[in-house]
């Protein structure tokens, strides 16, 4: 356990030194300015628009940090062979991978939560509005989504053979993960059984990112968010992350470092 936290701490420090927090500053400025601009261009409900855009900004900055961190660490760990130093220590490959996941998730959470605080603070103290409980719920769902994507990205890093490949795999999976709703819609159409079977397989292999997309339903009067939904969303995030983690781990075990 101690070794695991040391790897997580090392990864966190490494990413801080790679100036990942600049993304937080840039995202904060860009998205707050954009949200402000859109809210004054639009008629009415300024706080609503500002918070909606803020949530999008939080997701964007989290994804940006994830993609850039994957690119940076692939370069240092695999291209510059820094992973040799880590693996020659008394550390299993599973601990190494889990530590990386925790380190990545820590920095992404830091970016998302601090951006959420900035947006909430601006709405409450500058705009004189209120931050609803669903804003907090959406942020937690966003963190669950990031946990899944972080594990997925690092699994791709263990499988991939180039930095470009890892970044592209991750970006396509993020995009396709949001298309789950469309896959479901296709499944309800009149299609041949073969096509439906392929779609069903695709549906179960892709991460269901729409399940964490609470920001699009934040004002939905039919939204039910009780204990059952929380439990299932948490369990799904952990089950999917564990599957992806195992795939990454098996690949790392099989990988030859010579």
């Amino acid at each position, binding site marked *: *356990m101690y070794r*695991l936290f040391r790897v997580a701490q090392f990864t966190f420090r490494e990413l801080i030194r790679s100036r990942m927090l600049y993304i937080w500053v840039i995202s904060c400025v860009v998205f707050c300015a954009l949200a402000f601009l*859109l809210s004054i*261009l*639009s*008629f*009415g*409900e300024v706080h*609503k*628009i500002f918070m*909606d*855009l803020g949530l*999008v900004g939080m997701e964007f900055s989290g994804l940006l940090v994830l993609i850039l961190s994957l690119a940076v660490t692939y370069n240092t760990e695999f291209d510059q062979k820094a992973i040799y130093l880590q693996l020659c220590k008394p550390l*299993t*490959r*599973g*601990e190494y991978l*889990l530590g990386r996941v925790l380190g990545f998730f820590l920095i992404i959470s830091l970016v998302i939560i601090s951006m959420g605080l900035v947006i909430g603070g601006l709405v409450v103290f500058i705009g004189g509005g209120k931050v609803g409980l669903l804003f907090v719920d959406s942020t937690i769902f966003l963190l669950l989504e990031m946990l899944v994507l972080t594990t997925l990205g690092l699994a791709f890093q263990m499988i991939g053979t180039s930095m470009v490949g890892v970044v592209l795999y991750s970006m396509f999976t993020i*995009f396709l993960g*949001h*298309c*789950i*709703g*469309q896959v*479901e*819609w296709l499944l*309800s159409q009149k299609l041949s059984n073969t096509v439906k079977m392929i779609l069903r397989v695709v*549906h*179960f292999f892709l991460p*269901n*990112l*729409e*399940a964490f*997309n609470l*920001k*699009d*339903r*934040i*004002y*939905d*009067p*039919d939204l*039910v968010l009780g204990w059952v*939904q929380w439990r*299932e*969303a948490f*369990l*799904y995030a952990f*089950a*999917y992350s*564990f*599957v992806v983690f*195992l*795939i990454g*781990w*098996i690949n790392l*075990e099989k990988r030859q470092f010579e």
Partner: protein
Amino acid sequence: MRPLLAMDRSLKWPAVLLAVFFLAQAWLSSRLDHWVHPEPFESSQSGTLDPRIVSSLRAVAFLTGYKVLIGHVFWIRVIQYYGDAENGADHYSKLYDYCRLASDLNPQFISVYSYGAAALAYQLNREDEAFKLLQKGVQANPQDASLKLMYAALTYHGHSDYKKEIPFLETQIAQGNAPTMMVNILANTYMKVGRNEDAIRLWRHILATTDSDVTKDEAAKKLKELYAITKVKKVDEATKP
């Protein structure tokens, strides 16, 4: 002692775990789908969206999971469309369809219904479309009172029943927290029935209290128009034999 995360070289137990957790996540994903899309997905996709409006933004909204964000962006495009005088040549024929799309992407955004319906009914005289838009708004937001009030006001307006419309609006506004749009409608109705003094009073109130620059501009224009009318009337009365 064997480390916690040491992999068995035969990779047998991770394979079993992988299979178990894969099935678990597939089952949970199906359960969550019912929560994410409680109604059949078809009805929210092809049933309510108007196929006459081809919009790349619509596709982007459904494919990327940013419906609310793109709904806001699209709403600004609707405002730009209505603000562009060139589109007035065909009497803003796409306004209703655009409002429908904006409300499909973001059904809980009240301004789409209130501003859209007001523009359609009071400025373009397309009451049928305004009613349809408001009906949709009330269905999507059953707890919102302002849309229901506006619907009632439009009903009176549609029958040119100003005697009922004016006291109805006055009562609602007197209760407080009335949307600016409703005050705006009352001011326009005063103008229609020739109660210019009341209209001037209300437009002055709007000019003094609104935060929106667009509404301020409109109020200033209306006041200019009303002052011109009252000036002409006064001159007419003074020159009467």
